[in-house]
């Protein structure tokens, strides 16, 4: 019963966030008025061509990051694990940085990001296939890969022109501007979320340790498959909105006390909550210093940091 209430509340929250996302911007538009007054062509154009695609991108990107957070925190048995622990975002960032330095147009530059993500996934899978599916090897491989990629990005920063560096930094802080997005990610990401959700019982068993999962009947190739599916989902979310911090870390922490630890519930709940959260953050980033835009990562990072402060203070006050 409690879970049904939580589910419908999150569904409502998502609908409200989408409505807010469509309304807010450099000019506030009431979407209900458009629905009744179809002659307002400019507002209709703004909503259907600009804001709606962006809101959908933000929602799916937020959902993907939150789901990856749930999976990686269960996988690595570490509540501080986040989607960017695998080094895939580092690969995508390196690809993007190379494309900017080479002055490749954004529409083609995205293929460099994809290439970087694929390269990272390929290196990761070839590294971990030698470790017979142990989760600690995933985390170690991911961290080493992250360091290597971030060093390469820093090298590019050191030698590139300042405007290129600025562009890369903005993207790395989270950029939901649809001109840079790979449209196919929006269609693929929900499919990957569903595919990962279908392995919810495997993820529950993995969250109790490698040996527990193995002796309960989870095959090492299934562990590898879930890891790869989640890694690709991270890559897709990076392609949609750059590197958006804190969502993958924070949303599972918000959802866990509201639902049960079973991933059957926490995956869909986190998807809804993560989507709604990013849409609201994006709306704030678009309207707070209108007509200019803040990178959405600034808002998510700020709110995420405040959330963790609050959690620490709450834990301290309950323990005292």
């Amino acid at each position: 019963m409690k879970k049904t209430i939580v589910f419908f509340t999150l569904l409502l929250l998502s609908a409200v966030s989408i409505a807010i996302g469509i309304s807010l911007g450099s000019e506030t538009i009431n979407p209900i008025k458009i629905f009744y007054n179809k002659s307002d062509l400019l507002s209709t154009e703004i909503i259907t061509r600009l804001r709606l695609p962006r809101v959908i991108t933000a929602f799916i990107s937020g959902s993907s990051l939150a789901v990856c957070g749930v999976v990686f925190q269960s996988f690595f048995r570490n509540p501080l694990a986040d989607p960017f622990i695998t080094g895939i975002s580092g690969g995508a960032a390196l690809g993007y940085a190379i494309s900017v330095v080479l002055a490749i147009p954004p529409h083609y530059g995205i293929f460099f990001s994809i290439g970087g993500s694929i390269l990272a996934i390929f290196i990761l899978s070839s590294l971990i296939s030698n470790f017979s599916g142990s989760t600690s090897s995933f985390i170690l491989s991911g961290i080493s890969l992250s360091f290597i990629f971030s060093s390469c990005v820093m090298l590019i920063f050191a030698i590139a022109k300042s405007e290129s560096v600025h562009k890369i930094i903005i993207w790395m802080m989270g950029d939901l501007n649809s001109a840079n997005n790979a449209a196919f990610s929006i269609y693929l990401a929900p499919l990957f979320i569903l595919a990962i959700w279908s392995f919810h019982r495997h993820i529950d068993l993995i969250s109790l340790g490698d040996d527990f999962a193995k002796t309960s009947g989870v095959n090492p190739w299934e562990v590898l498959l879930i890891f790869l599916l989640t890694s690709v989902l991270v890559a897709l979310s990076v392609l949609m909105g750059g590197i958006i911090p804190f969502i993958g870390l924070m949303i599972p922490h918000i959802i866990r006390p509201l639902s049960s630890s079973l991933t059957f519930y926490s995956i869909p709940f986190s998807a809804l909550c993560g989507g709604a959260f990013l849409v609201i953050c994006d709306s704030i980033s678009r309207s707070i210093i209108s007509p200019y835009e803040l990178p959405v990562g600034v808002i998510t990072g700020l709110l995420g940091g405040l959330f963790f402060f609050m959690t620490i203070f709450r834990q301290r006050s309950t323990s005292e």
Partner: protein
Amino acid sequence: MKEIILQCSNVSAGYNKKNFITDLSLEIYKGDFLCLIGQNGAGKSTVLKLLSSILKPYSGEIRLRGQNILNIGHKKLSSQMAVVRNINGIIPDFLVKDFVSFGSFPHGRALSKIKQNICSEIIKQTGIDDLSKRIITTLSSGEFQLVQIARALLQSRDILLLDEPVSNLDYRHTVEVMNLLKEFNHQGTTIVCAIHDLNTALNFCNRIVALKKGKILFDGKPEELNNKLLEKIYDIDFISIKNPVTGKLMVSPLQEVTKKYHSSKE
């Protein structure tokens, strides 16, 4: 003639290419309640890891009903044997009934109506129905051990492998857990457990295998153990008497470490 259910043939195994078990051969029969005893580091947990296919042997073979366990898929293997070990690290806040239901994983994807009934039946049989809506991280060690056993029994009633199932437990919970295992052993479950407390092993099991430095030093019935053998296994002196009530052997270590042990170390 008893049916051999698990068989280790000339198995050598260990960690980081170092042998912990050397040339071990062991046959486990259907209906055995076998306790592995020995000093810390004797190889008890390693034997259990080998039997459950967590650890691959360097050489030799382990067979489950005649089939090499390395050739049996994890799912099929887990439907025939369940393992109870300590879970280290962060444990998620699962409800007891959800945790027990994980035992049905190798038998199919979703918990069907029949499986749910079996799950509630196991919860009743193991006497944990009043715990079923509690969160596992709030349970005491004894309660969690019973919950772990319930999960394992849902997974398989054929073979149970338990690594120190009663360490950290008080007398009451030790007896409760061992009685439960004994009851299922009477119903046909083959049980292999590594155990530290000798008296618990002597009271409940019907076969003892003593290990020392990865080799079998003794394999027989509990009543066949004597002070001399125990001294060899643990390198300390023991006294043993017959329990006046049960007639079973009761042992107690003497505080003084044997001179032989000291001299061998020197």
